[in-house]
């Protein structure tokens, strides 16, 4: 739940300044999954999705929300429990032992390890913060093994991209002159601003990213289809940095850090700048 920082900062006021912390705030290179809700109603689905990723891919997941979403309301038709997709944890069983030995750090096709829970006979094993040897899970200071494990942990997160939806365009054409790319609680303001600009005849599209790490597999291709990419954020430019870094696109930030959301007017003015010069 992001609010104006740093520390206690601006309680109750909105900000989007913790994306970098979620992306990079760890010892060593150990990426985790990051997803963001875009509206009050989306919080349910996004939380459910965070749980699915955590359980099925055996990884911590950051689910980002912000003050604007938290203080917002909208009608929500809640789903029935039976309509929710099943979350399937992969538990290790005695059959997972090979040659009488259980390999707690063996990985499946998702590169996730199986859940071996206390109480199952024969699967006794130790986990912990020290670097582990691939597959056996023994403590290992071997240089080559460490590099392999660092890569495996990163690839495990990258693999999630195979199990999430492709990025769609919320409003507008899939290619064109200007794309407004947002994430999180700026959804409503961007949606309204883009809608009004399009009604005035401007070729502008709205892309809103829920999956921030890993990004959807088609995001790069989608961005390459636009002449200009504007990224409005309630911070000093975090998603814009990620996009530039990953896709080498000349994305431009539009930033405001005042504890308040963008107004539709502000966004329209900014969009129109791209069409007046």
């Amino acid at each position: 739940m992001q609010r104006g920082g740093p520390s206690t900062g601006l309680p109750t006021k909105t900000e989007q300044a913790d994306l970098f912390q979620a992306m990079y705030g760890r010892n060593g290179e150990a990426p985790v999954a990051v997803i963001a809700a875009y509206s009050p109603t989306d919080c349910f689905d996004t939380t459910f999705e965070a749980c699915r990723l955590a359980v099925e891919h055996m990884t911590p997941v950051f689910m980002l929300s912000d003050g604007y979403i938290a203080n917002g309301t909208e009608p929500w038709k809640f789903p029935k429990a039976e309509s929710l997709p099943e979350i399937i944890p992969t538990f290790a069983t005695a059959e997972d032992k090979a040659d009488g030995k259980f390999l707690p750090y063996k990985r499946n096709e998702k590169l996730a390890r199986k859940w071996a829970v206390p109480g199952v006979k024969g699967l006794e094993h130790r986990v912990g913060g020290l670097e582990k040897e691939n597959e056996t899970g023994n403590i290992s200071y071997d240089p080559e093994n460490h590099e392999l494990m660092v890569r495996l942990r990163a690839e495990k997160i990258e693999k999630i991209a195979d199990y999430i939806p492709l990025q769609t365009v919320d409003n507008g054409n899939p290619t064109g002159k200007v794309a407004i790319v947002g994430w999180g609680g700026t959804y409503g303001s961007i949606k309204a601003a883009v809608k009004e600009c399009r009604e005035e005849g401007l070729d502008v599209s709205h892309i809103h990213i829920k999956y921030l790490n890993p990004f959807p597999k088609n995001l790069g291709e989608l961005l390459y289809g636009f002449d200009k990419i504007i990224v409005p954020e309630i911070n000093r430019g975090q998603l814009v940095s990620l996009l530039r870094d990953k896709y080498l696109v000349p994305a431009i930030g539009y930033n405001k850090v005042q504890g308040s959301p963008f107004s539709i007017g502000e966004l329209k003015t900014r969009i129109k700048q791209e069409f007046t010069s």
Partner: protein
Amino acid sequence: MENEIISEVLTAKSFETDQDVRWCPGCGDYSILKQVQTVLPTLGLRREEIVFISGIGCSSRFPYYMETYGMHSIHGRATAVASGLKATRPELSVWIITGDGDSMSIGGNHLIHLLRRNLDVNILLFNNEIYGLTKGQYSPTSEQGKVTKSTPMGSIDHPFNPAALCLGADSTFVARSMDRDPVHLRTILKRANDHKGTSLVEIYQNCNVFNDGAFEVFTEKAQKGDNTIFVEHGKPLIFANGTKGIVLEGFTPKVVDVNENSTENLWIHDETDRVKASILSRFFDDPKLGEALPRPFGVFYIEERPRYEDQMTKQILDATQAKGLGDLDKLIAGNNTWLVS
């Protein structure tokens, strides 16, 4: 579960792993590991239902050497991880391995909250009064004036007294033992396991590299008689080979000559007496200063108090009986929703 036959006969060896033990030669941790491995097969537990959870430090490598489920968790937070496990899986036998740095410094907060909640777990606090893993800085239990690498002119910190701290946090089982007395340690470990609640066992453990001899006045034959007292429930407080005893004058403990006093006047140890346990835990003088009360070992205090996991299970059961099984759809719908059409 009790009726099933345990097919596997467990021995101390059943609990050894194939990992190299990485403690320094001569470390007191070896003795503690050995006593735990010796005691476990006598407790009627299956190997797969035992979990060792540790924090960070020399002692916290312990789980890697136990052929059970184990987690070498985060600094000071073994208590938190273990609380979560025990609350959700009350049938497991959960052991927390921690040291004086891990439990008294970064993990001090988690420790006291575990103690007041009284989950049925066993805490083995390896106290060597030094940060050993980081090569010899003063710890929260190092005595005042201690010269270490981080306190070249002597520590000005007043140390924690772990037994007194834990009694203050309403621990329901507080005991002290030592690495150098395997028989005593095994007895205390068994009693800790038998206790239905959080058991706190402080174990004096010699770090022969960075704090060698910290406890030798309590553990070595030549000096231990005068400086050490082993307390047992229902028995008088006698030490120095039976020549000295402790009497209570009001709330003040006094050392007396046993020959001049009949043993009836001596303090009779009562594990269930909180006030006396509290006085006992305050036998904490530095023996080097003279006139010190002997340092007590044994079970200081036991209290039967409802366990957190039992209360949690009961609360869920009561709620289920009163309101029926939970219905996610109803819960989400609440009482004041309507359909927009």
